[in-house]
């Protein structure tokens, strides 16, 4: 079992490394570094304006720390066929999950440390915490996280409930209460409570797991979900194969499709529009990028940075939509339909232009909010439109056509 875990882990790390390399090769990373720089700049400016403790300082610290403690799951690296092929080895899987648990500790701990580090100047000035307080709270959070990971292991064995109460929920309640006490009154509390939770979970780990029954179906689907989230993140930067996403009906958005006439040349528009709206991956991507863009535009009052943000994000959404076309083209049935490749490309272009227009209008509102009716805001908005037209009528059709011509579709 140890061997199995080592093998899986090696394969997993090679995979991750491959994607990370792809991401860090990408031009967009440069752009993101600029964005992070801009945010850092904004943060340090913001810190400079804080002269005394803020009213909202402590609640903000509590909220951020609470959220960061939720980051990171146990990476079990289970695979679908395991439930058939390794069923007989069920007893021995305990060791496997132990290794998985140990492996999964690193990332959340690093995240907690980094966030605490970044947050410390604000916690110091804005929330009136001492350096000692911050360190104690960080240590407490780490122990809480270890307890959370243990609870996830219990869940694999169907033991995530204690007399009807969900353990994770219970732990979260403890966490938020001790966070509040620690931040407002006495910081060692979180460390003590966290330590107790962790030691309790750790010591009883084996007993609890063995008293349960391994929940294969649930564990595998949890792991798939986790992998999906990771890959979706990579997918923001590069194409990841095998990202299959969730579908939601979203009936209330059906009115959007009314404009599509049911004629042959619209066959694919019919499909693309529905897919975009219902496939969490693509609508999610659009929402995420548009919301980030809007927030940034509404916050940053530097003309050049806003200009870059406006243009970059419209391009990004257009660029990230492309894989959707490829995904549909991989469906074999589409090759049998008597519809020409030109119509497919046209239909997809129509969808992209429509989506980008929505994004453009939303971002324009944010720009007007920040810059008012001025030459600056008009320049930014026109630049956004230019990118939209470039992506929609030049870049996209060419790229898709190239894709169709290369494959034998």
């Amino acid at each position: 079992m140890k061997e199995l875990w080592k093998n899986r882990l090696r394969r997993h790390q090679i995979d991750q490394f491959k994607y990370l390399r792809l991401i860090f090769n990408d031009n967009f990373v440069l752009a993101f570094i600029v964005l992070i720089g801009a945010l850092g700049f904004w943060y340090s400016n913001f810190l400079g304006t804080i002269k005394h403790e803020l009213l909202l300082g402590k609640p903000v610290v509590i909220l951020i720390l609470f959220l960061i403690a939720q980051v990171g799951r146990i990476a079990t690296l289970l695979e679908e066929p395991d439930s058939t092929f390794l069923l007989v080895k069920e007893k021995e899987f305990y060791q496997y999950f132990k290794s998985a648990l140990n492996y999964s500790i690193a990332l959340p701990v690093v995240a907690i440390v980094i966030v605490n580090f970044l947050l410390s100047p604000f916690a110091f000035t804005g929330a009136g915490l001492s350096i000692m307080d911050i360190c104690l709270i960080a240590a407490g959070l780490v122990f809480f996280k270890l307890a959370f990971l243990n609870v996830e292991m219990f869940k694999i064995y169907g033991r995530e409930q204690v007399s009807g109460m969900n353990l994770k929920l219970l732990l979260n309640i403890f966490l938020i209460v001790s966070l509040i006490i620690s931040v407002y009154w006495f910081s060692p509390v979180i460390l003590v409570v966290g330590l107790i939770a962790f030691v309790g979970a750790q010591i009883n780990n084996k007993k609890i797991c063995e008293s349960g029954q391994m929940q294969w179906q649930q564990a595998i689907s949890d792991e798939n979900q986790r992998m999906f989230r990771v890959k979706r993140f990579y997918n923001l930067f590069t194409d990841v194969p095998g990202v299959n996403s969730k579908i939601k009906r979203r009936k209330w958005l059906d009115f959007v499709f009314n404009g599509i006439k049911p004629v042959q040349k619209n066959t694919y528009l019919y499909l693309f529009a529905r897919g975009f709206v219902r496939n969490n991956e693509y609508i999610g991507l659009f929402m995420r990028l548009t919301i980030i863009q809007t927030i940034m535009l509404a916050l940053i009052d530097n003309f050049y940075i806003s200009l870059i943000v406006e243009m970059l994000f419209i391009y990004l959404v257009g660029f990230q939509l492309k894989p959707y076309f490829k995904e549909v083209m991989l469906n074999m049935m589409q090759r049998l339909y008597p519809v020409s490749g030109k119509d497919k490309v046209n239909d997809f272009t129509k969808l992209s232009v429509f989506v980008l227009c929505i994004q453009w209008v939303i971002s324009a509102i944010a720009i007007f909010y920040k810059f008012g009716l001025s030459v600056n805001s008009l320049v930014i908005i026109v630049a956004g439109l230019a990118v939209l037209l470039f992506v929609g009528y030049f870049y996209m059709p060419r790229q898709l056509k190239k894709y169709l011509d290369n494959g034998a579709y």
Partner: protein
Amino acid sequence: MTLEIKELTGGYGQVSVLKKETFTVEDGQVVGLIGLNGAGKSTTIKHIIGLLTPRGGQILIDGMSLHDNVEAYRKKIAYVPEMPILYPELTLKEHIEMTIMAYGLDHDKTWENANELLKTFRLDNKLDWFPQNFSKGMKQKVMIVCAFMTNARLFIIDEPFTGLDPLAVNDLLNIVEAKKKSGCSVLMSTHVLATVQNHADKFVLLNHGQVRADGTLDQLKDKFDMKDANLDDIYIKMSNEDL
């Protein structure tokens, strides 16, 4: 509608799975394509519908090849794959709508057909379901409905009998019979010999990518020199020839 396959050679990549395969499907004929796993049944079908390009030989539907007119060729064919392939983000109803659009069919008339088929396969109350909610057999039925509501003249069905419940198999055979009466042709590959023996007019026996024999059951009996044999016996005899 006639399908002619002349000296077809082809396969995946560099490997030729099919070697000079020749057979025809005539007007109003139901033909069973029979052979062991790996004999080339699915490969043959993929060549006919144009997913693979032949390395040699010709495939003609009513004298027309895929190369002559892609869209017209494709409109003549409807295909039900062995593994159902559906769009995850479309409901059952929308799959039908989309097929209507893709083939440029008459909306109301096709829906009439579709509704009848949906009722036959007991899917008429599941119009708003997504593929992820369907079982494998139900997905297969969706594919069958989408294929048989078109105006195609040649129906190609890859292994239709596994995964369908007995009632659905029976319904499918009735539909095939009706299509045949209206002059359409059907080519189906299968391992369920007892069923196909009663419902096909002609059989094509494939072995190692070649047509070992084809014809009606009586013709096959003659060729293999087995008087009281059924399709099963002939099939086993053919398989043993290799040994």
